[in-house]
């Protein structure tokens, strides 16, 4: 067993031959039990990972703003993403225009779905955007300060600011919160410069319904 032998040192030679020095042994086994009991307790009651968060900054709503002032967006910049049921995404490029019919398409979340489309759309408008990822990785690996990363990112984005992709995210009543978080996540993964969560209009709900049966 686990013990400490407390011999009491030397200097006991005087005594008779037969007399043995009695060692004091402390059994450590219960202490091991106690230690592991406490470990188990801490493992069960505490959480290791601190939850992560996404920071959202909404614009200040301006009730005096007129409806036509809101849409200064160029059709070439705009991309609208509808989040709908069964983890599906309906998206189209451009703006609603009576003269030009839209070509909405259906895709899904994930690497080969919306991410590919967003990456391509971003790349087509500003090929330099691809290098943001390199800066991002460098910042993550501490090879670059966060300030430098933001400076570089801004420099790249400013080169084609008037062409840059603007994504409008519209979630209908059948989509889930996971869909919303996923799409916001895709925005940060694909380095989309500007995106907004916008309320869906009844006409758009009908549009999505007509595409997803």
């Amino acid at each position: 067993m686990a013990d400490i032998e407390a011999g009491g040192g030397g200097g006991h030679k005087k005594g008779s031959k037969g007399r043995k020095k009695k060692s004091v042994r402390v059994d450590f086994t219960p202490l091991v039990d106690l230690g592991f009991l406490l470990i188990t307790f801490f493992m069960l009651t505490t959480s290791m990972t601190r939850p992560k968060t996404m920071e959202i900054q909404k614009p200040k709503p301006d009730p005096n703003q007129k409806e036509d002032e809101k849409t200064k967006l160029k059709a070439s910049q705009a991309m609208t993403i509808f989040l709908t049921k069964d983890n599906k995404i309906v998206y189209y490029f451009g703006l609603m225009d009576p003269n030009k019919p839209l070509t909405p398409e259906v895709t899904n979340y994930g690497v080969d779905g919306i991410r590919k489309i967003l990456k391509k759309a971003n790349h087509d408008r500003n090929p330099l955007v691809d290098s943001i990822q390199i800066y991002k990785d460098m910042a993550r690996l501490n090879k670059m300060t966060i300030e430098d990363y933001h400076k570089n990112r801004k420099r790249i984005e400013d080169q084609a600011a008037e062409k840059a992709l603007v994504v409008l995210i519209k979630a209908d009543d059948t989509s889930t919160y996971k869909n919303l978080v996923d799409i916001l996540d895709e925005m940060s993964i694909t380095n989309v410069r500007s995106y907004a969560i916008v309320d869906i209009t009844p006409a758009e709900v009908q549009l999505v319904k007509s595409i997803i049966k």
Partner: protein
Amino acid sequence: MARKSTWVDMTPFVDVAFLLLTFFMLVTKFKPSEAVPVDTPTSTSQIALPDKYIKMTVDKKGRIFFSLDGKIARGQALDKIAAKYTLSITPEEKATFMNLEQFGVPVNQLKSFLDMTPDQQKDYATSKAEGIPVDTSKNGDNQLYQWLKEARLASPDDRIAIKGDRNANVPIFNKIIKTMQDQDALRFNLITGAESDSQQ
């Protein structure tokens, strides 16, 4: 012949056990008690949650639960709400409220909720609780708005965080966001779990 006993020295084992214990004590954090189970979605975001925050939890049924850090802040918020809705809260009920991590009852049920025993409260939260009403129509009684307003007054430095269940529907979040926008709370955090396949 006397059998030789096998002594296994346990001392290093004790060392290991306590080393691990120290590690767990330092690295982990106590799980906050949750009234309802919430399965958060994952994201690749690396931003850690601040230590103190006002939290609105949405469970999968779309019920809203509210939590505010700090007992004094909770007490202040309760006093204001009680005054606004003309509730007579006894000191005992206030004490119960100050110890409450999370609550999700309409104001008119708050008093009876606070009179329950902790076990009953737990039961109530999982089954019957309606969540805090959020009515964003023009003249509606938006109780979440009032709670949020008082919570922000009681602890002005706290960030606002929304913790939602992955299967909750989006409209309730739009309502919460609108409630926040109505009182110029425009910066907020969405609590998510960490995702392992972060890039590509």
